[in-house]
């Protein structure tokens, strides 16, 4: 298992290198792709900033803190868009017959597919995300302690796993329904919109949904309470503030199980 994981990570690195090399064959397209998604993220943030700035903050959160949290989710989205592109575009790969291509090789689908369709354009949201985080901490500086940077790293990884698990579950349902691209887009856009504002801006029911059902509040909102020293702030207690890594791991496990079931169904059913 450990060796397999290591090979899989190596493989993703190789995909990344070959993806960048391929993208650089078309330099204008490469720059255009990155810039368009960079601007897309920044313009969305700008719209939110204009709106929030009129009220000085939303849901008891300051503008800088909101920008910081949105920046985190943009980085997570960018990583999924580029590094895990093969899963985002899974229904297309099923239709194009590439799944058969993967299955005739001595590796699991999950080891081969994430970066196989690597898209460099995801660098746009990643760059925008870092820019927004820096701008956010400039406007609203947190209390810097030794564990803050590692914690931000953990938050970035666990939030990516949360969103990745939803992408995997939708991707796996391509084994049942073939075309799932619109569902992937719908979930991605909803997550994007929901994370533009702090969860405390929504009704208690909606907060419950993005805590228990689709755990988007763990991608940036809850863990940012610790960054901004805001424990004792939310309706669901302080435990949730520390749970992002556990929720990320759990979500990924669920996503993996569903993915495995989908693969078995594909091998059982054949042509979709």
């Amino acid at each position, binding site marked *: 298992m450990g060796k397999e994981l290591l*090979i899989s990570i190596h493989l993703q690195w190789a995909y990344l290198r070959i993806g960048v*090399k391929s993208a650089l064959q078309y330099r204008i397209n490469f720059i255009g792709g990155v810039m368009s998604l960079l601007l897309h993220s920044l313009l969305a943030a700008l719209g939110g900033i204009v709106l929030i700035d009129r009220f000085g903050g939303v849901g008891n959160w300051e503008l800088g803190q909101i920008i910081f949290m949105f920046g985190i989710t943009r980085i997570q989205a960018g990583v999924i868009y580029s590094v895990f592109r093969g899963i985002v575009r899974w229904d297309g790969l099923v239709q194009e017959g590439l799944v*058969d291509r993967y299955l*005739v*090789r001595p590796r699991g689908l999950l080891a081969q597919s994430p970066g196989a369709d690597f898209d460099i354009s995801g660098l746009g949201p990643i760059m925008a995300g870092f820019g927004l985080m820096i701008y956010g901490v400039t406007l609203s500086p947190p209390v810097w302690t030794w564990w803050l940077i590692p914690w931000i790293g953990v938050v970035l990884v666990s939030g990516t796993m949360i969103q990745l698990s939803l992408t995997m579950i939708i991707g796996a349902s391509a084994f049942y329904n073939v075309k799932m691209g619109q569902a992937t887009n719908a979930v991605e856009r909803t997550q994007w919109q929901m994370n533009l504002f702090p969860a405390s801006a929504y009704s208690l029911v909606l907060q419950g949904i993005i805590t228990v059902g689709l755990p988007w509040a763990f991608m940036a909102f809850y863990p940012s309470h610790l960054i901004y020293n805001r424990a004792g702030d939310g309706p669901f207690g302080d435990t949730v503030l520390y749970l992002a890594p556990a929720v990320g791991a759990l979500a990924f496990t669920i996503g993996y199980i569903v993915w495995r079931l989908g693969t078995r169904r594909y091998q059982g059913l054949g042509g979709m």
Partner: protein
Amino acid sequence: MIVAKNLSRQYRVQKDALNTGRFGFGLARREMETVDAIKNISFTINKAEAVGLIGLNGAGKSTLLKLVTGVLVPSNGELTVNGLDPSEDRKKVARDIGVVFGHRSQLWWDAPLKDSMEVLRMIYSVGKADYERRLSELVELLQLGDLILRAPRQLSLGQRVRGEILASLLHSPKLLILDEPTVGLDIIAKARIRTLIRSLIDDEGVTVILASHEVSDIEEICERTILIHEGEILYEGTIDELKSGADVERSLVLEVSVPAEDGSDSVEVREMTVPLTGGNTAAILEKAASSGTVSDARVTGGSLEAILAKLFDKITS
């Protein structure tokens, strides 16, 4: 090497995909039916043997290849590849299989061929030293040379197919599965690929399953053929046996030089076409030789392609 016993595979498909039903309710309630793609077939393929898989579109060739590679699980029956069940031990079986899909590339379109090989080296866990040695051997065998440094988009179709074969052989597979490998190639490129595949069988002892609508590929590469129709094996045996047992009209075409009828010293060449029936060849040749000089002789109508065309036409009508 490959043993199939009473192998079957069924699919569940939508009965009438375009039927929306009254007021569109048919979209919600889909009627499914079971289709037999492979019906209770048995066969054996030995080591270093080349077997051609022939069948019309939808005959079950691709399903059979997917079963052999473990992509699909059989509905019934037994199948072993190198002593392993491909659906149970897919990854282990895959280590010894190389696959070339004529319609589906495994190369990165915009990256040099060598980069694609590096990724495949990781996927198949080929050691660095073995990889370097194997790569240089194959590059020489496939006459790729500096083309290894070019991206597939910069290569001709024939060069790309050689790149695909290189990718499928990098891990030294014992079994090579080729699905329409020469589709779209010109005659020179086809001949080169055929020679190469034949040398892999003879020199490296690779077992080959070749599925192709190019009957001449199968005729030149394979000793044995399996004819599939609607999921069943129609014929399994050597190509020579298939040809000799076929009920196909063959003709002997002779070019005979005879003295000109005007009495001059010149000769004129006449073409004679005589139907060949059991044992009359010698008599025809004797008669032609007595009337002039036979300058050319050829048999028409007995090609494998003609035999198969007649056979499938008879079955489908």
